[in-house]
Structures are given as C-alpha cells and as structure tokens.
C-alpha cells in the first residue's frame, strides 16, 4: 500500500531521542517487543480460542469427532486454563522453542527457518531496489526540480504508488514472463542453485514488492532535497565556492536523506512480514504465505511464531536505521522535546 500517510509520522520517528546509545535503543526496542508480544500473542490465543481453534481441531482435520478432539487437546495439555498455556508458551518461546504446528506437526522454528531465507531474500532485494531506484529517482527529481524530469518522476511515482500490489505483480508477470518470456513467473530457488537463477526468480517479485517503498523514498527524498536546497547552509556552501556536485552530495543529500531513511525504517516490517500479496502472486514460500495459510487453518502457534520473528527483525532493522539516522544527522538528536 502506499501509506504515504504513515510518512507524516516518519519525521517524528526520526525525532526520537537520538542521544540513546545503540545498546540503550536496543533495550528500549526489547521493551517494545515484549509489550507487543504480550499483547499480540495473547490476542491470537484469545481469538483462536473464540474461533474454536485448538490443536486437536486443527490436527485431526474435519473428520474428527468432538470427543477425539477433546481427548487430543487434553493429551497435549490444551485444556488447561488459557493463562497457564500462555505463560507456558511464553517461557518456551524465550528458550527458543516456538512449539509445533498444530496442522502439520512440523516444529514452528523449523518452518520459520525454511521460510526466512525466502522472506529475507525478497525483502532484502526489494529494499535494495527501493533504495537504489527510488533514491536515484528522488535525487534526480530533487536536483532537477520543476523541470520535465522532475514532473515525470513525480507523476510516475505518484501513479505507481496507487497501484494495488497484486496488479503490479500480475502486470510484471504478463510483461516479463509471458510477453518477453524472459523471467520465471513464480516460485523460488535458493541461492545455492546459483546466484543468477536465484535472482531470476526473485527479481520480479522484488520489484513488485519494492514499488511502494521506492515511491515513498522518491517522494521523501525529493521533498527533502527541495527543502534542503532552500536552507541557508546551501547558500553558505555556494558562497564558499563549492561545486554544485559537492553541495548536493556532501551537504544536501546528507540532510535530505533523513526522512527517506525513516521511510525505509517504516517499510521494513511491511517488506519482511507484509509481502503476503506478492508471495501469493509469485507463489513464493515466504513467511507471508505461511502466515496466511496458518491463520486460515487456525494454526495459532505458527501465527505467533511468525509475529515473533517479524517483530525481532523489525526491532533489529529499526535499531540499525536509528543508528544510521543519528550518524547522518547528529543535530536531530536535539530536536526532541
């Protein structure tokens, strides 16, 4: 989704106290993750219970009798009070045991380990594309502001950001797989099968997934550059006789990149965990698909495991983004109340 909206919040994201050391930021992030987990996992537990999802109901399939389900649930201890089961889950999760899927009996940690490379490859490549392409477009538009180039970029990225993500995916398949026959239309091969093959399977979905973030980066970077160009320090740099190129790359970009970087931070959760649509279109066995399938199957341990992993990744990547932001714009540290 475009969620340009979320961006209005992004300067604030960057305005968080930057004086924190990375370690402290991490600690705070862990505080956050604990809060989310407590509330998200408890929520899933409760919802699952309401919807009648239980290990027996899921594992024994639709042929099962209520009695068989009850017996199964009793055997795995699912008939204990919810709060007890919840604490149980939490303690084993802390020791790395995320339980086993009710549906397939596969350990959740193993399923996630299978899916993670796919999701990370996809998210990583999409992020790279978004940063490189979106960044280049944003810089170009910002440098050539109010020219044809600028307008073309602005209009294109504006239009692309209104594209429903699955339409983008299907469009890419129609053009590149069917039309040009150049790239596979879906599926995934691990990087061990050769970098080229891996890339050929991943490039279309990564492009489709990156659109939203790329458009946002372009937009933020352009705005950032345009407003930074109006800042006095740019005049100052001109007065000092620096070349336009130096001013752009040494001064303007450095300050303009902040909001764009904050966009990156905000998009990371969506790239890692929110690629459901892209994964569906391209038949990629990532965490999004797993989450969708598991949610629809009522396979609660898997859903919770995915939330946990996504949150962990988001925590780590946001910490990285925040550290980068602080490096990039030390003065922003003072901007907070």
């Amino acid at each position, binding site marked *: 989704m475009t969620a340009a909206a979320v961006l209005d919040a992004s300067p604030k994201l960057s305005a968080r106290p930057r004086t924190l050391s990375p370690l402290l930021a991490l600690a705070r992030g862990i505080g956050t993750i604990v809060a989310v987990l407590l509330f998200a996992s408890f929520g899933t537990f409760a919802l699952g219970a309401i*919807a*009648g*999802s239980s290990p027996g*109901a*899921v*594992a*024994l*399939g*639709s*042929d*099962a*009798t*209520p009695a*068989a*389900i009850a*017996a*199964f649930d009793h*055997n795995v201890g699912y008939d204990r009070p919810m709060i007890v089961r919840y604490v149980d889950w939490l303690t084993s999760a802390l020791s790395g045991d995320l339980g*086993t899927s009710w*549906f*397939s*009996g*596969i350990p959740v940690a193993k*399923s996630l380990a*299978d*899916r993670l490379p*796919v999701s990370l490859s996809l998210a990583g490549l999409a992020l790279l594309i978004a940063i490189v392409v979106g960044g280049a477009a944003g810089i170009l538009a910002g440098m050539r502001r109010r020219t044809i180039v600028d307008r073309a970029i602005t209009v294109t990225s504006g239009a692309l950001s209104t594209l429903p993500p699955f339409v983008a995916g*299907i469009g890419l*398949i*129609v053009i590149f*797989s*069917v039309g040009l*026959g150049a*790239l*596979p*239309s*879906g*599926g*995934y*091969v691990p990087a061990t099968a050769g970098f080229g093959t891996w890339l050929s399977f991943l490039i279309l979905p990564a492009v489709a997934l990156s659109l939203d973030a790329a458009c946002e980066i372009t937009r933020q970077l352009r705005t950032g550059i345009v407003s930074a160009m109006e800042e006095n320090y740019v005049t100052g740099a001109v007065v000092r006789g620096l070349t336009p190129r130096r001013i752009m790359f040494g001064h303007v970009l450095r300050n303009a990149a902040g909001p764009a970087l904050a966009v990156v931070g905000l998009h990371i959760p969506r790239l890692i965990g929110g690629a459901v649509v892209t994964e*569906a*279109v*391209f*038949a*990629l*066995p990532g965490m999004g*698909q*797993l989450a969708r*399938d598991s*949610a*629809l*199957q*009522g*396979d609660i341990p898997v859903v919770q495991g995915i939330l946990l992993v996504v949150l962990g990744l988001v925590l780590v990547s946001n910490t990285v983004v925040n550290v980068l932001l602080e490096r990039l714009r030390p003065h922003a540290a003072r901007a907070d109340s």
Partner: protein
Amino acid sequence: AGNAGSSDPTHLTWGWGMPSSWDPVASTAGADVHSLSLVYSGLTKQDPDGKAVPEAAKSWAYNDDGSAITFTLRDGLKFSDGTALDATAVKKSLERGRDAEYSTKRAQLAIIASIDVLSPTEVRLTLTQPDYQIPDLLAGLTGMIVSPKAFESDPKSLATKPVGSGPFELTSYTPGSEAQLKKYDGYYNAADIHIKTLTQKQPADDSVIIAGLQSGQYDIAVIPPSQVEAAKKAGFDVDVNKVLTVRTLDINNTVAPFDNPKVVEAIKYALDRKALVDKAFFGFGDPNYQPFPSGYVANNPALDNLYPHDVKKAKSLLAEAGYPNGVDLTLTSYDTGGLAEQIVSQLGEAGINVKIQTLPLAQASQQIYIKREAPFALDSFSGRESPAQAMEVLFGPEGLMNLGRNTPPEVVTAMQKISTTPTDDPSYPTVVQDAVAVAVKAMPNAFLFSWPRIFARNKDVKGFTPYIGAQRFDGTKIEAS
C-alpha cells in the same frame, strides 16, 4: 518446456498443492492422497476408474462370511529406508493408523478388530463385522504402508520425511513451495515409471497459473475451469478428468425450517444445476443429483434429473411448507468464487432469500462439521476410495456431512448391504446403486454437480493417464515432439 521444466526428458514438474503432511496417518486433507501416492504404496491402489487393484499385495481373499480378509504380499518389497515391506510391517502400519492418538484415520480403521501375520507375505485382517469394501478402503491414504522403522523412531519426522515404497522417494521438501522426488527403484512397478525426477510445485494464483506454464514453471499443472481457454490458446493440452468430486449443499434437517422436508425439496427444485456448471465452472462439470459421477460403479443413472429445475414447483412446495411469502436462510460457505452467489440468486427466484456467510476454511469446517452450528452450508465432497465409506461420510449416522445425524433405518440397511456384498459379486453394482437411490431420496443433502480435475499439460508430456482417484504417473513419459 522451459527452464525448470522438461528440458530434461526424464524430469517432470507437476503443479499441485503441497500435502498437509507426508504422514498418511496425520494427513488432514483428502487431496493429500495425490502427493502421498507418489511415495507410499498401499496394499491396494485405485485403477484409473477407481477400482481397487493390487499394489503391495498381489492378491487377497475374504473368508466365507466376509469378516476376515487375507492379503498376500509381493515378494521382496522394501521401503525406501531399506527395511522390508513384509506382513509385520503391514500389521504395524495399519495398527498405528487405527490406534495412534494423533491418527486421523482411526474411524475408518476401527473396522479392523485384529491383524495377524500368517507368514512374511501373508497378513490377515479380522474385521468387527463383515465388510467387502476393505480393498477399496485401503486403496487410499488409509491403507498406505509406512515404514515401521521410521514411525517407531520418530513419528513426527514423517510429516516432512516420508518413508514408503511408492514409485518415488522424497529427496527434499519445502513446505508450501515444492517437493523434489526421485524415482524409487524398489517400487513394484518401477519398470513402468519413466520419470527419473519429479518436482511437485505449489501452483501459483489462478490468475497467473497459465503464465507459469508458459514460462516453463510446470510441465503439467492443475488449473481452474476459467483458465482452460487460456491454456488451450497458449498451446497446452488440456485433460478434463472426471473425478469423484461433487459440490453439495449440506443441510441439517433437525433445524427449522429444514426440518420440514418440503423446504428441503423446494431448495432442490429451485436449483438450476446446469446453469451453475455453465457459469461457475465454464461448463466443465455434470449436473448431478447424487454423490457419484456417471460411469462410476456407484452412479445410479436412474437418478439423473431427479429434481429438475422447476421454480414453480419450488414455490408451491414452499407455500405448502407454510412459507407462501418466502423464507429467509443463511448459507455458510468457504467458497470465495461465484458459486454461492449464483446459488443465492437461483434460490432467490423461488422466494428463498439467502444471506451468505463466508468463513475461512478451517473455521467453516469447525462451524459446519464439529460444532454443527451451520445448518445450511455450501460444501464440496471429494469422494472416498470405497463407495460405502463415501456414503458413510455423507449419510451415515455419524457421517460428517450428515449435519442432522439422523439417518433413517432404510438408508442404514441399504448402506450395510453394500459392505456385505462382495465387490466382485454380479449384484454389487445394483446393490450400491440402489443404496444411493434410497439415500439420495431420503437425505436432505442437495447434490449440485460433479466437477472435473483439469490438467493443462505441456505437449511433450506423453502417456499421461487421468485417474478418477489419486493421480499417478505410471507410463507417463516426456518426449520432445
């Protein structure tokens, strides 16, 4: 064929969904039989028409009253882990299916009272009551023989690492994505398996499945009826296979207003099954009034057109039932295609006003089967290897899709007769078909149509035989044309 496809003449990529588990005992989905048939063999298997034929067992014989059956195994069969597939293995495997607490096959196997190993190649199943359907019953997931060595050490590992003696063995598996298999030379019919390696690959979204075939993602893939035209246009062979799947409306006739048989009858007359097939399935399917497709042994031709589309009659039935001004119902469905909407529209014309409640599959099956809180549900039945078993699910007193769980005695009797009639008895077809007729007329379930399994196939794939039950690749070859 394309990059991942059949540039290698001994490799086949098959677009088909991944199983819920590679362990037949833990499998929760009927459709898993197609994948699991690749790696397991049963005592029996279904031939293309659905008849039970020998697989691991080369023959079998019932005792006189049909209360015990002795299977004779082929000599020298081995599981892919190297252990012998002998009578002991069969006994252990079936006992696990019958007894394991996590088994989803307990109900089906409860008929087996005891299993005796008579010799390394002879195993006798003593039944709790006479039942001639055992070879059929065991031709699917229920009878697949799992290596005891595997499940005795770590039954959970079977979910991803099956050990059987089917035509292939699993070499790698990514849940939700693909399974790599290679030919297993220990399979009894290995000579007829020409594919050396097989990739089973999760098919993409309907809207891009043909693109996948075109870009060489699959050599053969299951496609929805909407894509048939596109597949043909793109130069693929399309096989429309008659299979056991049938769409039905489950109805709980212990709940008002369905407790009035006239209301149920009105629903049956109000439906225009032909139109359903034509629109929702692009004409691929046969209107049906019974759970079995034409040509199958249990199909009773006399039931064709049992409830012809007759809005007037439906209306008058409704009026007779005390609803002259129409009746309001809720249809529970997990189908997000247009079928439910079309049904609602048809019923609406007869004054039956239906609201749709769409639920995710898992939740729908909770609502419909387990909690039985949805008295009117759009459902799909994918058949069973044994007609008796299929009818048990649909109509039996404990039948899953018999939402009211109230089977009239005459139906029970007719169904019992199926089990007690040897399948090679000349009267068997008549017995089955009669039972079907009795049940279809007495029970509330409204059958809509049988729908095919459709494969789009790369022209290089030759010798492909469609199966009514589990799809097999015996005889399938890849030859550049």
